């Protein structure tokens, strides 16, 4: 329990309500699934651009861009993590 570790989860967005919602979904999903991850919130537009993202909110898990320009659904967020977390 609680010892599954996923690498880095980056939530990209300049701090708008939609980005906040996305961050909340990510944190809730990780908590529910009991997966530990390094969640980073990236707010600086320059940093966001350097990651190759134009549409926020966006989520990057271990260098994979899984969603951009929309708030993902909670079920979808959970699936990203269960698919990637070590079994």
């Amino acid at each position, binding site marked *: 329990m609680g010892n599954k570790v996923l690498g880095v989860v980056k939530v*990209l*967005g*300049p*701090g*708008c*309500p*939609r980005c906040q919602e996305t961050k909340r979904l990510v944190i809730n999903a990780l908590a529910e699934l009991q997966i530990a991850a390094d969640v980073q919130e990236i707010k600086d*537009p*320059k940093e*966001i*651009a*350097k*990651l*190759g*993202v*134009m*549409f*926020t909110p966006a989520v*990057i898990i271990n*260098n*994979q*861009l*899984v*969603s*951009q*320009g*929309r*708030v993902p*659904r909670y079920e*979808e967020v959970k*699936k990203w993590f269960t698919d990637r977390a070590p079994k």
Partner: protein
Amino acid sequence: MYLRIGALEGWRLLRTGLLLAFIISVIAGLVYSRIMAYSLAPTLSVADLHGLPIWLIPIAYLIDYFSHGWICLLFAFIAAGLIYELIPKHLITTYMRRGRSAGYLLALAAAPFLTVCSCTMVPLFAGVLYSGAGIGPAITFLLMAPSANILAILLTGDMLYWELAWVRLAVSIIVALSAGIVVSKTPWGRSVERECHNTAQTAVAVSGVERHLDEKLWAALKFGGYLAKQILPYFIIGLIAVSYLEAYLPTDIVGRYLTGVGGVLIASVLGGPLYTPTLVEIVVGKGLWSLGMSKGALLAWLMGQPYDVANALAVSKIAKWRVVLTYMVIAWLGSVVFGLLYGVLSGSL
């Protein structure tokens, strides 16, 4: 098992059908109301407002506007949400990397469809800048999006008049393109571009999850609702302010200052630094216009939207101040020149 899958599919189908029906009925409602010139209430004129008690003025004005404006607003927010949601965002990102001319084309073609609040605008600007398309397309995008997005064009056409909406769109294209090209030729523009090129792009793989149509439609409507929640409060405050403006501001003052060459200059200067949230520039423009502002000054006023101070401050964190000043000056000149030109051509300067 089969039954459960069947039920799920059925629910999907039903949800898709309901969402599509809703969207289509809004479009049909808009078309019908525009063809039949339908309205829930008779339209107020400035003279009607004068006789009302002070507390009733904004209420009467709001009821008057929303009784015929609601369907267009509803349609505009739904359309904005749908297009933003359904537009293939990864394609835009990919094509932006193709280089300069593709970047300009894409900036011009995509900006009208990406209704953006300032919150999405800044990452987009930075994204275009760093994508390899360079500073020119980034500036073009930045100037196009606030003044020529689908929400602004629809509302300009509906609240003011359609000729102005098309003129606004055309002038936005010209001004945005020339500002982009000029900035990309300046030494300071080039140095910003070099800085961005030197920073290595982190390659990010996109692992696409295919979403069902009903999920996309629902997300689109939710985004439209989100936009409405962000924009409508300011829009309503703008309407309330304008109701008092129309009721109490004497027409000869507006007629004196906001007509002629001086009027265009004043309108263009007011339009920029005076930070008006998205769509409010249309409301205020309508108020001033009905009080006697010339058409030329009206266009100059509307064209002030892309170079407002809040936008400039945000951009200055990414690009240099010189870049910001350059594009602001060009956008301002554009608003003056085209304001005058439109004023002369439409016979209302």
